[in-house]
């Protein structure tokens, strides 16, 4: 069974017809040629396919495209691009921080890590607690322990975690000042 849907991807409105079994990830990669989000497990276990879906981080391999008609999606390629559309250079502070702290090696999990970090920073700023927040009634202070906990849905087999945490912490501190 097919369905007609519209997705706004990195600021661009795209209409497409999908088999209703097609995941959001495969719709992006196979149908629209948007390959910034990657497929690592197809079961929501690794976080490699993470994008911002209507502003919140989501694993697109666990979402059916047909269930997200009209959704707004930001991939790492579109992050920080503003209204001018997707540019050629990394535009977001997280991009630059990951480069500076070498928060990746093979790069396959990286667009997902960066989208997850962007979503996570917004969650923390909105006051959402995590499993390691000492007092859930208080506004969480985003330290290394908080970042590690909140980023544990994104696996990195190269083991770039120290660089990932340092990169995100740097961006978080930059926002506070």
């Amino acid at each position, binding site marked *: 069974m097919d369905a007609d849907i519209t997705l706004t991807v990195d600021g661009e409105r795209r209409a497409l017809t999908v088999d209703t*079994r097609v995941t959001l990830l*495969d719709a992006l990669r196979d149908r629209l040629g948007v390959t910034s*989000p990657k497929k690592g497990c197809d079961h929501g276990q690794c976080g490699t396919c993470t994008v911002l879906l209507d502003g919140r981080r989501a694993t697109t391999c666990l979402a059916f495209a047909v269930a997200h008609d009209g959704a707004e999606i930001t991939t790492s390629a579109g992050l920080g691009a503003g209204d001018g559309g997707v540019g050629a250079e990394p535009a977001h502070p997280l991009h630059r921080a990951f480069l500076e702290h070498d928060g990746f090696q093979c790069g396959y999990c990286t667009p997902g890590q960066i989208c997850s970090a962007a979503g996570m920073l917004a969650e923390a700023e909105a006051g959402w607690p995590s499993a390691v927040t000492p007092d859930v009634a208080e506004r969480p202070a985003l330290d290394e322990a908080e970042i590690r906990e909140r980023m544990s849905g994104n696996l990195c087999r190269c083991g770039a975690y120290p660089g990932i945490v340092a990169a995100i912490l740097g961006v978080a501190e930059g926002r506070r000042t």
Partner: protein
Amino acid sequence: MTGLLRPSAVGRSPVRVDGPAKVTGRAPYAYEQPVREPAYVHPVQATIARGRVTAIHTGAALALDGVLTVLTPENAPHLERGIDPELEILQSPDVAFRGQLVGAVVAETPEVARQAAGLVRIEYERAEHDCVFSADRTDLYRPEVVNPSLPTDTSDGDVGTALRDAERTVVATYTTAMTHNNPMEPHTTVAVWDDDGLTLYDSTQGVHAMRESVAPVLGLDPGVVRVVAPYVGGGFGSKGTAHAHLVLAALAAKRTAGRPVKLALTRQQMFSLVGYRTPTVQRVGLGADPDGRLTALSVDVVEQTARIKEFAEQTGVPARKVYAAPNRRTTHRLAALDVPVPSWMRAPGECPGMFGPEVAMDELAQACDIDPVELRIRNEPETDPETGLPFSSRDLVGCLREGADRFGWRRRDPRPRARLEDGWWVGTGVASSTYPVHASPGTTATVRISPDGRYEVLIGAVDIGTGAWTALTQIAADALGVPAEDVHLHIGDTDLPEAPVAGGSSGTTNWGSAIVAAARSFREKYGPDAGPGDEHTASTAENPFAQRYAMRAFGAQFAEVRVHADTGEIRVPRLLGVFAAGRIVNPRTARSQLTGGMTMGLSMALHEESVFDDRFGFVVNHDLAEYHIATCADVRSVEAYWRDEHDPYVNPMGTKGIGEIGIVGTAAAIANAAHHATGARVRDLPMTPDKFCE
């Protein structure tokens, strides 16, 4: 001397050349290579561990809209036999292990291909299978050599007598688990077979190596096979050799006659098709005098291989190289089982083989009442214990001393189970690391000046995340005497000069040496005023020092471990490694290589185990939810440092390789720290909480 390169760009820390493309997700990996109107392949796998296919019913699959073809052993294109049994798929009805390829669907979309694969019905004649790995089997055999072509057994002196006579002994059995590489990018091949030949966009560690493996099996002249891999999402060995899916993609492309096909293995399929590390059983014997000087050292290894194809991991090999002892023995015995084919996983041999002996050294330190760092220093050999050759450079002692200083080892109370903090037992441990310097003479590179005046460097290297894009650019800049910004590197394609795999921590050694050779002869030929169109190609020669020196990198790793007194939960708040690995080309990316290896070592120590159900012959926990790899929350402080080591014998860059040594010794350091914390000696990996609650 090899004529060491004068470092200018080398030693600096530019960010990765490929970094901007990777952080935004624009770097195209194998699946993302632009091809027109691809069809999609979904494999069909055997559901028995041994036997034969007696009937294969494809009617329901073929009836599905969008199915193009179903490949089976009955209709698959012919392959050459007798070359590599792992690759000779769909040529007979025989099933040699569960999960083996017995068919595939090619369809218009991935969804239809997958659905149709589920509709293929197969009848089997089952044979009794045997997947039970045990060191007590009576049919263990002695392989002719161990990976890659090292002696299976070695013996010097009389270990038996020396162990009997020793005043201090440790004799114990250590085990490591079956583990899977699990790079984040699943193994993927996009194949196009048209009038020009076969093109494979592959997630691989070596484009030329894949071509050499796959062309003869397909009965093709290597000249008509092109393999392309500009960006690869990790490999850790599993993408270093060709596996069955590569051939399957080629067969499917042959059937679709010019139309590209895409085959991406699922995470689950990777657990039976792309290799793994064998479980190992290591019987270790150490004999010493009361001062801890080794008189005897033996490591007897039992591990598994597949009945269909042998792989003998060289687990006993590092024990031949690290410590002096007059009486020494290493042996390897294999159990050939009806299991998937084991293969390379990061530091094959060295990684598991520095677990047993390095925990045994900790036990010996305890038996002699000597500090474990000091025990290792006392057993430092003057020459390579196996060959008697001098080391080209060796600074294990420097690594141990500097590591001890940086870690704060001197403050350590040596008594086990002495420090309890907030319900957690706290301890620290140490272990040594080592990894050989590998070199492949005949690696080729081209240097030329493009029409716009830039230096172009061409070599069939592959960057699987190591930083080769960046490090090779730096090496080329220094070899040519120009700024790195003026160098444009081309890698990842068999159309480029021939180069070996990103494996054995030898990428920089081989590729860098070829680039230096090409650059130097380019300068000799054209001088400093070379212009557009000038071009020169050169290959690496045999290193004359390889026969005169033993060449190895060394390191020391320190771990702090906390074990919960009630639950046995184990945490590693701190890892610190110091390495002597020759010259470091790019400190920024090198640090990531080393800490990444240590992180994988932590993961091996605490989490990783492929749980094999020998009743059915498959890995039960075959996904990333149940096969736990270290997550962000599992990894806290991981620090890597290196000694300023100048080795003029290894190669013109003075590099020894850093991709694997980081995972060597980590698990032993953590096990030793866990013993110091709790007093419980865990000799079996992974160190799950139950092992501290017995």
